[in-house]
């Protein structure tokens, strides 16, 4: 009965899907095909649709800024606005509005208050002609939330130092009634941080061959009033905090491949493959453009402590952040020889196993004798994805990134040419990509999960 009514309603709603613009299929599917659709009618229609959506969002953002303000004094102001575009399963782009199941975001936009707009606010409310500028960190914009729920540490952070670092957070959680047993919460939290330190510490010694390097890991943790701490949300465990592990890049790290751990090799291989994206980072220095500044990869930890790209939501426990060292040449001569595959943690089910067989992907079950590990809750496997396919996927990502950044640049140029005032500037475009089990890459659609994020930052 439910399905019948639902189908009836849906058939009514879906009636005009055909007239909406769609992304090339090669962008949203598990394919190595290079679409090269740049001059096709479909691409022109798509660009028009994207421009129209972006225009609506830009106008909306500007209207918020120009709303009449009646107050005479002001301390707080709207500093930035984040919004997004969704892509549903067949590639139609639009504003995400309704879903009976959880949807994923494909592209996010962050508009920052312009310096000129800030100067005007300061003049209006402080009456000053000498105004200060604000140095906005792009990383702060990416993270969004305040720093106050983030605990930072590295491999060298000792237990007494950790205790000092977490003390304000434990105290605040206790005062706000989020936890009842401070001592137990502290012990559990430190134990969890020590677990991460143990897994990540050998990454400090990775050799400096690649311009891209992992500089931090970010993990989400959840806790409950009793002080239980888990890396995933569970029944009754719903309050979250962030952990950030920062890599100490050792000066004399020159390990040979033989000396490197499997985790270091995995991270090193990713860093090498990200050189494929150098076209988005280098060049165009004179013109305004969106340059790739950061990369974020969804990471899971396998049952034996091995790191891998995590596709399974229950196993996605954090993110690895990569950035490119400034002025580091793309030195392929020093490129070290590593495995041709990288691990992906995903469901160990018949569908994925059939896919693995069809595509000759090696797979092993993610099993541990430690019952507290998440690997025992959901059956998962470690799939060995092809790095060659991943690099081809990244080449596809260059085309996508160019598409998403070309339209805002053109729109802004038009606005400037018309002499229109601008209160907000589209500073960051965040492109969310899905990585398939054989290593191919596509845009995260409503059905997918974005495990690789490209942060394109406006450079003027």
């Amino acid at each position: 009965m439910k399905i019948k009514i639902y189908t009836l309603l849906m058939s009514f709603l879906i009636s005009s899907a055909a007239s909406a613009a769609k992304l090339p299929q090669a962008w949203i599917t598990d394919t190595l095909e290079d679409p090269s659709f740049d001059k096709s009618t479909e691409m022109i229609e798509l660009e028009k649709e994207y421009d129209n959506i972006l225009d609506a969002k830009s106008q909306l953002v500007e209207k918020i800024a120009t709303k009449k303000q009646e107050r005479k004094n002001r301390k707080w102001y709207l500093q930035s606005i984040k919004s997004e575009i969704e892509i549903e399963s067949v590639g139609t782009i639009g504003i995400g509005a309704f879903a009976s199941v959880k949807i994923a975001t494909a592209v996010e936009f962050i508009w920052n208050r312009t310096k000129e707009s800030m100067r005007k606010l300061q003049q209006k409310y402080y009456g000053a002609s000498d105004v200060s500028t604000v140095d906005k960190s792009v990383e702060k914009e990416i993270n969004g939330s305040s720093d106050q729920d983030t605990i930072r540490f590295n491999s060298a952070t000792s237990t007494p130092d950790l205790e000092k670092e977490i003390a304000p957070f434990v105290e605040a959680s206790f005062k706000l009634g989020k936890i009842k047993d401070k001592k137990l919460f502290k012990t559990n939290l430190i134990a969890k941080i020590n677990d991460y330190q143990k897994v990540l510490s050998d990454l400090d010694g990775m050799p400096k061959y690649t311009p891209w390097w992992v500089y931090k890991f970010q993990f989400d943790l959840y806790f409950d009033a009793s002080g239980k701490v888990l890396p995933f949300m569970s029944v009754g465990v719903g309050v979250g905090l962030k952990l950030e592990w920062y890599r100490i890049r050792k000066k004399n790290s020159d390990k040979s491949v033989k000396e490197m751990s499997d985790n270091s090799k995995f991270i090193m291989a990713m860093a090498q493959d990200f050189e494929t994206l150098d076209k988005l980072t280098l060049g165009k220095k004179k013109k305004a453009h969106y340059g790739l500044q950061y990369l974020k990869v969804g990471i899971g930890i396998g049952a034996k402590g091995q790191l891998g790209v995590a596709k399974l939501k229950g196993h996605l426990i954090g993110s690895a952040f990569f950035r490119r060292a400034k002025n580091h040449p793309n030195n392929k001569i020093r490129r070290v020889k590593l495995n041709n595959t990288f691990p992906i943690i995903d469901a160990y089910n018949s569908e994925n196993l059939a896919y693995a067989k069809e595509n000759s992907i090696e797979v092993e079950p993610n099993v541990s004798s430690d019952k507290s590990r998440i690997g025992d809750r959901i059956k998962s496997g470690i799939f060995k994805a092809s790095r060659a396919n991943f690099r081809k996927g990244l080449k596809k990502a260059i085309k996508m990134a160019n598409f998403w950044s070309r339209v805002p640049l053109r729109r802004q140029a038009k606005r400037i040419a018309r002499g229109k005032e601008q209160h907000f500037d589209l500073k960051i475009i965040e492109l969310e990509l899905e990585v398939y089990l054989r290593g191919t890459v596509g845009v995260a659609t409503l059905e997918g999960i974005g495990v690789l994020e490209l942060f394109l930052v406006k450079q003027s």
Partner: protein
Amino acid sequence: MKKIGEIMNFKRLGVIPLVLGLLFIASCKDKRSADDLPFVGMGEEGESIVRYVPKGRYIKRFSSVMGDISEKSTEKLDKFEFAESWILKRVSLGLQLVFEVGLTDFFKWEIEPSFELRFEELPKPTAAL
């Protein structure tokens, strides 16, 4: 220590105007005109849902709703003070509230506009520091 939720009830601040704003999406069109905006979603069976909203209506309605929320939020933040020595540095207000519109006893339609407004203290001019 005062709890931020006791002083600024963001849910109360945003829910009523947002519901009004969102209900209009629930009545949006299934045929498109020239610059209508596509709203996309996915049904329970994984099928695509695409509907259209006139661009002007979308901008007018949402800029009004979000402008109000922004103004009321900054006004409340101006008056906000922590007890003890805590300092509030940044507030992110995610308008990713999911509303369920009950169309029948069996079917609910979830509406989720996604915006995040981020507020900070207006920096003092250098000379005034």
